[in-house]
Structure formats: structure tokens, C-alpha cells
């Protein structure tokens, strides 16, 4: 679905490249999380996958990015939006400002694409239902909470039926409740088979739901693999990303001899509970 081949990119006037010789492939339906410290290139990768790099930001790009068979350097942005949708951090800035209800806001993209009027209500209703906004359809987009606005941004992109959804830290400006609702929608979309690439800092959530994790550092891919492998790597600590709290807890237990050296470190709460339970049961049996 996504092919990135030896991609290097520098923003205009920048001395160092934001991305350096990045290569990756993403299969259809895969849920890929991108992690990394601030300035590691996560947002730039998101922009590259949606064509904003280089169409919007210009700058110098070498290598190739292809999404659903479309070369992002050749295909105009307005055409790419039907292939790959982008949702970014600030929910308020993703509202078009031209529409006065949630329903009309979702229709905005369809109107721009010239979708026939008869086709719109069905698509809008589906997008609102997927994001849990059906009951808020008549509200002003500016009267929504941050989490609701971010779900509106998702609905506004989903209504254009992209095959790939790219999310750049979609919950970074939301409270825990808003984050939970947005994550629930993303998880639901992933289960429905849409390909998702998401830059995110909330590692516990990534550990629970992502199929694969890519770690970026200074514009390069440092780690690429399943969450259990990437999120337990000590490289996360050295590159200021940190590890999930359950991994840190088990690592500390390991340093105290309480977690077996040969047992993989957990990344989810369930794995941690299972691990500690098995250790405690083993000790009890040993004591008996």
C-alpha cells in the first residue's frame, strides 16, 4: 500500500535534512505507529506520505514515495486526498471555518471533490457514525470539545474515502477523555481494514493496538518491528523516547533480580500482569 524508497528531504533553508535515506513498505490494512523524540522527523514523514512534502512545503526531496500506486511527487495534492488522508495535532485548525454545522463541515471535502449531491448524505452519515458524531450533526464545529473536534477532523477526512489514513499526533492536544474517544475511533477504523500510519507519543496505546512500530531518530529509521520488540529496546531511553511504564517496571524488577533475564519484557498491562503472576506462582511453588 505504501512504498518509501530511499527518501531524503530537507525543508527550504534548512541545513540538515529532516528525513535521511528512509525506506519502508506498509501492507494494506496494517497499523503502523511512528515514534521518536521531537524533531526526529515524524511529522515530516507524515507530510511525505500525504504529499504535503514536497507539494506544500517545497524543499529538496530525493527518493520516491508511492501510496496506493500513486507517486506523491507527481500526483497533485487535490488528487492524493482521495488516496491518503491527513489528520494532525491541532483540532481547531482543521476546521474549515467555512461551514456552520458539523454536518456541513463533513460535506466540505465532498463539495470540493465535486461529488454529486445525491451521494453526499449517505457518505456523510457513514463518516459521522464511524466517528460517533451523529448526534452532534447540527452543532457548530466551534461549539465542540477538543476531542469532538478531532473526531470531526477524522470524519471530514474519512468521508473522502482515503485508502490510507495518516495521523500526526492526533491526541497530543487532547485531555485523557478526548484522547480515549479519538483512539477508539482509530482502533475501529483499523479493525475495518483501513491502512493507518500514526505518529504518536502515547506508547501504552501503541503497544496495545499497533501491528508494527517504527522509531525515528534524526530523520532516520532506527528500529522497525512489532511493538514487543521495538518498545522494549533500550535505544528508546537513549533517544529520549522512553519505554512504556510496564516495560520500565519490569526492567527495574529485572535489575533487582525479580524478573527473569530470559523472560521478554512486557509492553502491555496484560503482559506485565501475566509475567508477574507467573513469577509469583513459581516462587510459591518453589517455597512449597
Amino acid at each position, binding site marked *: 500500500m505504501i512504498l518509501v524508497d530511499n527518501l531524503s528531504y530537507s525543508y527550504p533553508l534548512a541545513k540538515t535534512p529532516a528525513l535521511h535515506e528512509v525506506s519502508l513498505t506498509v501492507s494494506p490494512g496494517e497499523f503502523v505507529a511512528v515514534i521518536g523524540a521531537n524533531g526526529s522527523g515524524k511529522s515530516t514523514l507524515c507530510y511525505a506520505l500525504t504529499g504535503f512534502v514536497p507539494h506544500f512545503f517545497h524543499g529538496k526531496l530525493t527518493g520516491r514515495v508511492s501510496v496506493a500506486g500513486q507517486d506523491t511527487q507527481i500526483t497533485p495534492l487535490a488528487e492524493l486526498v482521495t488516496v491518503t488522508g491527513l489528520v494532525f495535532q491541532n483540532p481547531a485548525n482543521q476546521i474549515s471555518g467555512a461551514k456552520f454545522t458539523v454536518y456541513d463541515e463533513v460535506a466540505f471535502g465532498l463539495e470540493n471533490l*465535486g461529488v454529486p449531491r445525491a451521494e453526499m448524505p449517505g457518505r456523510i452519515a457513514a463518516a459521522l457514525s464511524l466517528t460517533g458524531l451523529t448526534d452532534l450533526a447540527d452543532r457548530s464545529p466551534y461549539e465542540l470539545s477538543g476531542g469532538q473536534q478531532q473526531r470531526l477532523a477524522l470524519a471530514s477526512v474519512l468521508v473522502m474515502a482515503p485508502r490510507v489514513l495518516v495521523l500526526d499526533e492526533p491526541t497530543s492536544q487532547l485531555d485523557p477523555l478526548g484522547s480515549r474517544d479519538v483512539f477508539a475511533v482509530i482502533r475501529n477504523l483499523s479493525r475495518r481494514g483501513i491502512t493507518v500510519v500514526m505518529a504518536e507519543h502515547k506508547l501504552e496505546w501503541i503497544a496495545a493496538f499497533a501491528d508494527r512500530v517504527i522509531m525515528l531518530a534524526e530523520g532516520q529509521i532506527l528500529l522497525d518491528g512489532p511493538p514487543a520488540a521495538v518498545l522494549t529496546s533500550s535505544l528508546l531511553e537513549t533517544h529520549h523516547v522512553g519505554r512504556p511504564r510496564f516495560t520500565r517496571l519490569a526492567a527495574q524488577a529485572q535489575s533487582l533480580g525479580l524478573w527473569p533475564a530470559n523472560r521478554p519484557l512486557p509492553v502491555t498491562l496484560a503482559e506485565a500482569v501475566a509475567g508477574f503472576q507467573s513469577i509469583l506462582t513459581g516462587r510459591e511453588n518453589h517455597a512449597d
Partner: protein
Amino acid sequence: MATQVSLYLAGDRFLYRLNPVTKLVVVGCVIMLTFLAPGSWTPWLMFTLLGLLALSNNLARPFFRSLWRIIAPLALFLFVIHGLFSPDGQTILLTVGPLALKQEGLAFAWLMTGRILSVTGVSLLLVFTTPPAALMLALAQHGVPTALTYIMGTTLQIIPQMRARAAAIIAAQQARGLETTGSLPQRVRALRPLITPLVLSSLVDVEERAIALEARAFRANRPKTSLTDLPDPPGERLLRWLGFGLTLLIIGAGWQL
């Protein structure tokens, strides 16, 4: 939380069913008649007709209440200033101490008040009966560039957002010890640390908004469609031209007489 600025009042009477462009033409005709037709009674006649129109569209209460709030202080000011201090004043009606109330000044204030009432009244009827989105759509359908109608529509919604942000910046700067009250020079000095972050954050917003618009195919090079059906029957289009022609005729005939 920021909310939208819109004076639209839901309804289903005659004015609501007109195409927004027809209403814009009515606004134009009323303004032309108010300012170009002769006679100091013309603006008041226009205002009376507008009042009847408001009444027939169930809008009398908000119409007259809004006008009272907007125009009353202004009218009072006009009558006092022009009545007492107009340089054209010759005919003294009343003298109280050093002050003399003059007929010519009052006549001018009467004309100006009528004009302001008429223009404000017709504009109020337009915004009371037209959802902003419908107005923007109608303009776009009549050849106004989409980028321009977008800016017009967005401005309405960005004002409350900017106000909310300005309030947040003021609160943040006050928390850092900035004095925003007190004498005029003190307030002027406080402006810079308030305006700079407001302008800079707004510039950052512009880039993100541009990305969001691109992500919604705003600049797609294909014919746009519309969710809303905005009827514009041929009869109404003909009526617009007739109304415009009639307005010119009345103005011309008025001056002939």
C-alpha cells in the same frame, strides 16, 4: 468556548424563501433609494416599508429592538450636535442660555437618522433571514471566487476565536505581572506584549489552516458541487432586474419632479 457570529434567526416566511442574491439586490436598491432619491421623507418611507416587511416575516421584535439599541444613541447624538451646532443653522427655534436650537440642523439630523435607520434596517433583515453559509454559497454560484467567499465566511467564525485567544494571552501576560489596566500610556505600553503573541500565533495557524484546506481538496481543479440546494427560479432573477430598473426609474423621476 468560542462560538460563531451569526444573527440568523430561523423562520420560514417569504423573506426566508428568497435567494440570498435577491436579498442582496434589495439591500442595494434600498441603499440607492435612501441616498440618491430626493426628499427628506424618502429614507423614512423606506424605513416604514422595511418595518412592515419585518412585521410580515415575524421579525418585528428583534428588528426594532436591534435598531433601538444601535441607532438610539447615535440619533440622540446627531440631533443634539446638529441641532445646536450646525454651521448651516439660521432659523432659531428655541434658546436656552447660550445654546440655540436651529431648524436646519434638526432637518439634517432627521435626514441622516432616516438614512442610517433605512440602511441598518435592510441589512438586519438580510442577516436575520439568511444563514451565512447560504449567502456564501449564493455568491459563489454567481461567480464570486470561492477563495473570496471562503474568506468572508471564515471571518465570521474567526472573530470569536481570536477574541478567545486574545483573552487567554491577556490572562497569561497578567499572570506574568503585566499591568493591563490604569492610565492610557500604561495601557498603550501593555499592547505590544499582547499583540505580538496574538499575531505570531495567528500566523502559525494560517499555515495549519492552509494544510487542512489542502487536505480537503479545496484547491481541486474540478467543478465543485454543493450539499445545499439553493433555488434561484427564473422568475426571481427577472424580479431582481425589474427591481433594479424600477429603483433607477424612481430616482430619475424623483429628480425630474
